[in-house]
């Protein structure tokens, strides 16, 4: 593949696009597929054939359009019209109305804040390009970042651009990406590796899944640029086995890129070679921790080890390893294309760029969103999310999954970035955002997460293995209505011990949901302990009491 050939593919693709009058884009990400968008796509194709429009109209599958709750979604590329909850039998009406007024009863309003308040960088191609065709990605400036890096930048310049962008790790901890790349680049070792962490184990998070399903090439390109910057020629992408569609798209994407010579030997005629292999996770939350993930790629039990040495110095097979999250790599191609300064111009002082969130729970518009850093939680939940359904009252928003915390109403106007969320006792996390209304019991939520951490603890270190179990037992006592003040004091002490003495991030952050709910919703704990009632009516004591009254 030469640069000219790359541009030729883009041109041919754009020409073909111009010759099509109407393109119907059907969402083929996992959310819409589970509401049978594949059948909708089939039936649209049949109708186009039936009405003799094959020459001028096309149907294509695209990635996630974001508004999962209104799926299956179908968009008309040329007019921007969006149809929601489309059934296969609606296909004829949609096809007949192409070029005329859109079908009113199916139209989804794209002027609502859900669409207008977002800013898309990582998701710029999601819902726009056909994720199963590399040509479309190339036509959308795909692999141009890699071309630019390989042909007009040296390794240090790539690292410099990433540093300048201010990009921080999107996996949750927020470590400066440029600094990490620089460390791996400087580390000595004959072999180096790049690993992409797609082990999205947090319950309530599906950003990585959507990115991998909707725009897999973007992640591959980001990894290849990373490989060039740090001097690695082999990459692994670790994806959960629970995401079969993402795995399939990714494997297909790797084959396509290899076929065109965008992965493999001597990319763009340079001396740089880079290969990527997929590794399947097997359902262990702890494998999201980098050293555990590395153990898993090596075919072992996914147990973490103490750091330092950090993977940047000694990672996969003891070689220097660059390990970043899916969303982090997905940010790289536009940073190289547009320059680090462009990226640094978006967001807040300490949080640059955008963040993808999976918005779910008690909120009207559930789905995938991308917003600039610094937006307030209120804007996300009440404008983009459309507020709380069924006239219920907002209670808390949970970010960061089992490692995060519950944020109450008083902080809704806070700007969202790594530091502000940490200040109120939660974390940015990978981007799961679950809204809870008054029907959720905060003690029960804390118990839910503790049960999760308890079962997912790998068992290597004592504080996590035993501590989470003890905390879960104490929380169960509280939700049973049998706890005492001493139990609560013990719970608080344990939070401290587990946080400070655990080996890895799983244990260190496991107490967060308890600590944050105790901080903001202590009255709910007290109601369970002293009054033997559950204010939200979730825990069994509340129900039993009602039954006896």
């Amino acid at each position, binding site marked *: 593949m030469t640069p000219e050939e790359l541009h030729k593919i883009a041109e041919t693709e754009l020409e073909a696009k111009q010759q099509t009058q109407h393109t119907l884009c059907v969402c083929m990400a996992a959310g819409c597929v589970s509401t049978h968008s594949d059948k909708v796509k089939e039936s649209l194709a049949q109708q186009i054939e039936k009405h003799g429009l094959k020459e001028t109209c096309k149907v294509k599958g695209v990635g996630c359009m974001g508004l999962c709750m209104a799926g299956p979604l179908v968009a008309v590329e040329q007019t921007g019209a969006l149809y929601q909850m489309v059934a296969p039998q609606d296909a004829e009406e949609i096809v007949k109305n192409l070029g005329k007024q859109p079908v009113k009863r199916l139209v989804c309003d794209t002027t609502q804040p859900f669409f207008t308040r977002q800013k898309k960088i990582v998701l710029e191609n999601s819902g726009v390009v056909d994720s199963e065709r590399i040509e479309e990605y190339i036509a959308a400036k795909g692999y141009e970042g890699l071309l630019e890096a390989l042909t007009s930048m040296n390794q240090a310049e790539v690292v410099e651009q990433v540093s300048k962008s201010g990009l921080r790790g999107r996996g949750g901890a927020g470590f400066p990406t440029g600094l990490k790349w620089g460390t791996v680049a400087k580390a000595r070792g004959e072999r180096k590796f790049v690993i992409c962490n797609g082990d999205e184990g947090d319950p309530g998070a599906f950003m990585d899944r959507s990115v991998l399903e909707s725009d897999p090439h973007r992640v591959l390109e980001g990894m290849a640029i990373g490989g060039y910057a740090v001097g690695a020629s082999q990459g692994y992408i670790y994806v959960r086995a629970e995401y079969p569609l993402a795995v399939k798209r990714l494997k297909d994407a790797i084959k396509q890129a290899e076929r065109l010579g965008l992965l493999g030997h001597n990319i763009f005629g340079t001396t740089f070679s880079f290969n990527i292999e997929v590794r399947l996770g097997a359902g262990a939350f702890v494998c999201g921790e980098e050293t555990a993930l590395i153990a898993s790629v090596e075919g072992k039990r996914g147990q973490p080890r103490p750091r330092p040495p950090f993977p940047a110095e000694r990672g996969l097979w003891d070689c220097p390893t660059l390990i970043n999250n899916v969303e982090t790599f997905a940010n790289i191609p536009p940073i190289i294309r547009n320059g680090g300064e462009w990226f640094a111009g978006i967001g807040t002082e300490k949080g640059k760029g955008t963040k993808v969130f*999976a918005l779910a729970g008690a909120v009207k518009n*559930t789905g995938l969103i991308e917003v600039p850093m610094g937006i307030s939680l209120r804007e996300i939940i009440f404008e983009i999310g459309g507020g709380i359904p069924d006239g219920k009252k907002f209670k808390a928003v949970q970010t960061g999954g089992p490692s995060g915390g519950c944020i109450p109403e008083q902080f809704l106007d806070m700007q969202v970035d790594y530091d502000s969320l940490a200040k109120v006792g939660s974390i940015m996390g990978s981007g799961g955002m679950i809204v809870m209304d008054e029907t959720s019991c905060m003690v029960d939520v804390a118990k839910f997460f503790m049960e999760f951490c308890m079962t997912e603890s790998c068992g290597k270190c004592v504080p996590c293995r035993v501590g989470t179990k003890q905390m879960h037992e104490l929380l169960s006592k509280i939700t049973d209505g049998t706890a005492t003040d001493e139990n609560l004091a013990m719970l608080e002490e344990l939070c401290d011990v587990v946080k400070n003495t655990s080996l890895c991030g799983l244990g260190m952050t496991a107490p967060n949901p308890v600590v944050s709910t105790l901080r903001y919703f202590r009255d709910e704990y007290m109601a369970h302990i002293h009054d033997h009632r559950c204010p939200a009516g979730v825990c069994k004591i509340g129900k039993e009491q009602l039954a006896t009254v």
Partner: protein
Amino acid sequence: MVMNLTKPAMPSDDKRWKIVNATMRRHGHSQHSLIEALHTVQEIFGYLDETALKFVAKSLRVPLSKVYGVATFYNFFTLKPQGEHTCVVCMGTACYIKGAPQILEAIEHIAKIKPGETTPDRKLSVISARCFGSCGLAPAVVFDGEVAAKVTPAAATEKIRRWMNS
């Protein structure tokens, strides 16, 4: 030193073992392909039995204890055969607060088994899962590999009842 690279014979003349062999060969029978090999076994046989674990252990020259350790460490692997139908209830955060526990309770009630178990007639396995990323459609349940969105306890039990009576 000459390494002994003879591979163990396939456990039976079941052709599916060839697929397992192909996976291991693709990774040069290296020890780090253990998880990939187990994935292949589970994909084609449905679960990992002792024969399979021993075969993979020998082929990759990994102690059986380590193979067993890996197979039991990861939730995705199962050492027991599944029922004719499987029902996976998502217990991720979004599904949990939108009523997944009630769905699971209703299913347990009519199937008379707990998550992780299979009915005695091997018709149905019930599994509770950690989020499969369909949070926008919570609560979600996977019936025989197909994700169902916004499931109610009544809809779930209806489906299960039909399976059990089939």
